């Protein structure tokens, strides 16, 4: 009984840094920083040929990243909890429509936004309830709600195009600039911080990781896994709606084809950011970097005047390579 201590020592001690370097996030961060440095150097050497650091380009990036970024944060929270949501693109479009319709009907902006959030959260809870109670894959549930919500949007759009033109001081909350940083980007940072607090520092977030990692075990230790998942579904729909509202405040007009394909892009962002498709693994930093990386690659290709089809090819290639690296790293670190 005296040598208990040595008997469990079957593995050499690991350093904190070495362990971290084996995480998927370390690779993505490294790739991101290297790419960023290359672009900055290139832009400094040839500022006219490669306008990466120009004010217009930076502003464009700061407005483009947040929409998909915010949606991805919600999708990521849900993915860590072990489920998918394919309905985010539809909810995103519906949110724009609802806000515009309620506002056009004569209600103040906060009421319009509040009503939109209530509707979105209701869709999320419905997704969660159906998935957990019926015990069916969320892939199917949310594919269904994706089509249903898309249908509702089509129906709403038959009443003609709807515009949302709030008073400028209200619109500034979503479209203004603070200290040179576009408001949507500030929203992105704020939501990312909240997501970080939730996932990495809160009790509920711990339950999300455990339920996503192994639902049976989580239930066995007393975690109400169904409730955790339903909350995650609601959060996911909420962020999709927030992105939709930010977008309509900027664009001003709702069109039914917005947000098509967004669900797959959001999943791609999460996967590039090192989240496991099977749930239970991932970081908020990864999602943020994933969103930035995706847009950065598209942006660079545009600046280099690459033809449009290159974008899809590159994003597709990055997605597959990222998953290969992440799978490889996860397998190595769990050995």
């Amino acid at each position, binding site marked *: 009984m005296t040598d208990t201590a040595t*008997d*469990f*020592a079957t593995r050499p001690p690991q350093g904190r840094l070495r362990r971290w370097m084996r995480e998927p996030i370390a690779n993505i961060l490294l790739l991101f920083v290297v790419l960023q440095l290359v672009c900055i150097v290139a832009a400094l050497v040839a500022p006219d040929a490669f306008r990466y650091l120009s004010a217009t380009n930076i502003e464009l990036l700061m407005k483009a990243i947040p929409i998909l970024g915010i949606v991805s944060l919600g999708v990521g929270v849900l993915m860590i909890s072990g489920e998918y949501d394919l309905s985010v693109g539809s909810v995103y479009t519906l949110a724009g429509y609802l806000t515009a319709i309620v506002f056009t009907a004569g209600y103040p902006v906060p009421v319009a936004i509040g009503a939109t959030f209530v509707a979105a959260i209701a869709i999320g809870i419905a997704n969660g309830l159906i998935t957990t109670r019926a015990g069916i894959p969320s892939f199917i549930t949310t594919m269904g709600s994706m089509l249903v919500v898309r249908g509702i949007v089509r129906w709403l759009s038959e009443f003609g195009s709807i515009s949302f033109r709030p008073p400028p001081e209200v619109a500034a909350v979503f479209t203004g600039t603070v200290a040179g940083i576009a408001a949507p980007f500030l929203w992105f940072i704020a939501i990312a911080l909240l997501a970080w607090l939730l996932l990495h520092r809160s009790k509920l977030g*711990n339950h999300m990781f455990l339920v996503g990692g192994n639902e049976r075990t989580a239930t066995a230790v*007393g975690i109400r896994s169904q409730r955790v998942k339903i909350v995650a579904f609601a959060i996911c729909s909420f962020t999709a709606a927030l992105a939709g509202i930010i977008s309509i405040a900027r664009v001003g007009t709702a069109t039914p084809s917005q947000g098509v394909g967004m669900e797959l892009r959001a999943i791609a962002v999460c996967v590039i950011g090192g989240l496991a498709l099977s749930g239970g693994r991932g970081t908020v930093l990864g999602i943020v970097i994933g969103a930035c990386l995706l847009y950065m690659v598209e942006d660079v290709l545009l600046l280099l005047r690459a033809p449009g089809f290159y974008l899809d090819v590159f994003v597709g290639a990055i997605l597959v390579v990222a998953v290969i690296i992440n799978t490889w790293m996860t397998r190595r670190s769990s050995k």
Partner: protein
Amino acid sequence: MSPTAAADNAPPLLELRNVSKQYGHVQALSDASFTIGRNEIVGLLGDNGAGKSTLVKIMSGIEYPDSGRIFRDGREVTIRSRKDSERLGIETIYQDSALVGSASIMRNFFAGRELTKGLGLLDTRRMNDVVMDQLTNVVRISGINSPDIPVEALSGGQRQAVAIARAVYFKTAMMLLDEPTSALSVRETDKLLSHLGELKQEGVSAVFITHNLYHAYERCDRFTILSHGKVIRNLLKSETSVGELNEIIVKF
């Protein structure tokens, strides 16, 4: 060998009286009675489908019996959820699913019972301290130098040790070990069995559910044998042998 608590006058730690449970057409348990005494390790034996797991699930609050009564220290109780069994001091350690592989040691240790600073925010530093203290001083594991290591990077024995340290920290009165040795090496099994002995000294009773009669015989004070949902024998270690136990299980 001192007499077990079952023979004492004090009421047993946990007593299940005439418990039945049916799944569809299958009678998983019929009128089963089972006790856990103070400072004793009970071996719960029986072939596949005898009802061992159902009994464990009822005690740990995952299943609710169709009929029957449960007593803790002689007082009648109901166990409807995992929270209820936790309150009664019952901790279940499953074969391989006691811990979530992708999560860190600390996050597993406090799963469902996190220490918070209020507002649902985790007190990570305090939890890390507790985990390292428990691992180094209670189950005495070395080679784990950080509470952030994911559980999937640990060996089978280290995982069991984490689960046991957790049970000890949360002041468990009884540990239910469902096939604890099936995933362990011979050396690790040996270690686990000696841990059970140590814990008994500290006043933690245990139920040991296993197929391996040699392991059971070595460590248990008493045996309850199930067959087709019924309790067919209750034997003290001093009254029986491995051969006899095997014969009973095979015969029924």
